[in-house]
C-alpha cells in the first residue's frame, strides 16, 4: 500500500515467496557485528555544495507541461484528491 504499486490477485503470494528467499539471503548481514561501525550513505568527499542564489533560466511552463498526460490552464490535471462531502 505504501508503495502504491496496485497488486493483482495472486501477486501477493508470488512476490511473498520470492521476497522471502531474497530476505533469507539478506539476513546474513546480521552475522556481522557492526555496533561500532559508522554507516556509509555515499562515497564522495564533496559536501555542502552550494551556489549563489541567483535567478537562472529554467524550463518554461509549456516545456514542463509538454509531457503531461492531462493539463488544464497551465496546471497538471489529476483526479479528485478528496472524497466528496
Amino acid at each position: 500500500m505504501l508503495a502504491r504499486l496496485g497488486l493483482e490477485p495472486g501477486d501477493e503470494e508470488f512476490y511473498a515467496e520470492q521476497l522471502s528467499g531474497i530476505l533469507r539471503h539478506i539476513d546474513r548481514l546480521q552475522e556481522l557485528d557492526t555496533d561500532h561501525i559508522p554507516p556509509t550513505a555515499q562515497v564522495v568527499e564533496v559536501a555542502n555544495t552550494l551556489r549563489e542564489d541567483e535567478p537562472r533560466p529554467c524550463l518554461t511552463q509549456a516545456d514542463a507541461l509538454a509531457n503531461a498526460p492531462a493539463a488544464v490552464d497551465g496546471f497538471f490535471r489529476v483526479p479528485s484528491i478528496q472524497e466528496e462531502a
Partner: protein
Amino acid sequence: MDLTRLTIGELADLLRAHETSAQELLGLHLERIDDADGDVKAFLRLTPQLAAEQARAADRALKEGTAGPLTGIPMAVKDVLCLSGVETTAGSKILRGFRPPYTGTAVQRLIDAGAVVLGVTNCDEFAMGSSTENSGYFATHNPWGLDRVPGGSSGGSAAAVAAGESVFSLGTDTGGSIRQPAALCGVVGMKPTYGRVSRYGLIAFASSLDQIGPFTRSVEDCAVVLETMAGHDPLDATCADRPNDVRRGLDAGVRGMRLGVPKEYFDVEGMEPGVKQSVQRALRMLEASGAELVDVSLPHTDYGLAAYYIIAPAECSSNLARFDGVKYGMSDQDAQNITEAYMNTRRRGFGSEVRRRVMLGTYALSSGYYDAYYLKAQKVRTLIKRDFDEAFEKCDAIVSATSPTVAFPLGAKTQDPLSMYLCDVLTLGGNLAGLPGISVPCGMSNGLPVGLQVLAPQWREDTALRVARAYEVASGMRVEPALV
C-alpha cells in the same frame, strides 16, 4: 575494408585523411543495423534525422579542420539518458511517449564533440537486471550466440558495439550494468569513479551508486570517450571538480605495478572453470609484462550482495515514486480518485523486477525495519569500502573476472531473481565503494567471451585504463565484432 569493424581511433584517422566521411559512416552503420538488428534487437529506437544533421555538421568540421577525436563517430545511447525531444523510456512502459525537454550533460558533451547519435538502446527496465530480459519492450540477444543474453542492464549498448552496429555506446552501471554486459558481449566497458561523470539527465535508479560510462572496441577508445564526458558539472552536486587526468600514462605499461588478486573473487558461487582459466591466463600475461601479482583479501565479499540488495532497492523505491501518472508517461485518466490513479498507473506501467525492488526497498526503509535493514546495510557498506582501502595499501589495482559466467541462455535465470542477482557479485563491490572499474575481453570459453575486470582506487581511472591497455597490448587482443 569494413568500416563497421574499426575503432574510434582508426576511423578518426580515415575521417581526417578524407578517406571516408561522417555521412558515409552513418549510412554504413544504419545499413549494418538494418542487417543485424532484427536478430540482435539492440536498439529500441533509431534517430536517423538527428544523426543526418549531426553527420553533416561533422563533415563541415572535418572540411574546415576543426574536427576532434570523436567528430563524425557513430554512437548509441542507453534508454536511461535524456536526449532532448527523443523518446526516452528507461526500458519501461510507464514512460512510453516521454520526450525529455533537455539533454543530459554526458550525452551533450559527446554531441558537442561531434559524435553522431544513431539511436537509443534497449536495457532492463529502469536499469534493474543483468540480462536485458526485464525490458518492458523486448529482450536483446547476444551477437556471439543469439540464444544467449547480452548481460545487463546495458545489454543493448553492449550488443550494438559487439555486433558492429555502433562504434561506441553509453551505458550506466549501478551494480555492474556496464562491466558485466561488456564481458558477456566481448567489448570494453568502464564504470568511472562515482562523481567523475555528471548524472544530470540520467533517469535515476540508485543515486549513490549510478555512474555513466562507455562501451568501446579498444581501451584507448574508452579513455577518449570517458575523457570527453568527465568533469565538473554544476547541475550534479555529486560531480566532483577534479583534474581530468584519466588518460595519464595510458601506454606506460605495468612494469613494476602491483596487481592485487583477491582470493574471495576466484571462489565465488557459480564461478565457471573456463572463466577462471581465461582470467588466470590473462594474469600470467600481465605478470610476464612486468607486473607483480600479490594476494589480497576482501573478507566481506560474501556480504556485498546482501548489502547491495538493501541499498539499491531502498534508493530505487524513493526515486521511482515520481512515476505516478501525473507529470509524464502512462496515466490512468479514468480513476475516481488520485490513489486509484497512482495504483492503476503503477500496476500497468511497472514490470515485475521493478515491483519486486520497490517492495523490497519500501520494506527496508519502513519504520521498525530501518535499523535492521537499511542502517545495517550502510554499515556493511563501510566494511566493504574498508576492505578495498586495505587491499589498495598492498596493490595499485585489483584484477579478477568481471562475471563468474559467460553469457547464459535467454530465460535461464528469469524465474529465480536471486540467481540473476548473483551475476553481479564481482562488480557490485566497486559501486558500493565508488571505485572505477573496467572490463576488457580476455579470451573465450565455450565459444563465448570472457571479461577481465580491473578495479582501481577512487579517481584512479588512469591506473585501471593503463592495466587494461597493457593487457590489450600483451595479448594482441582486438575486439572483432561478432558477425550475425
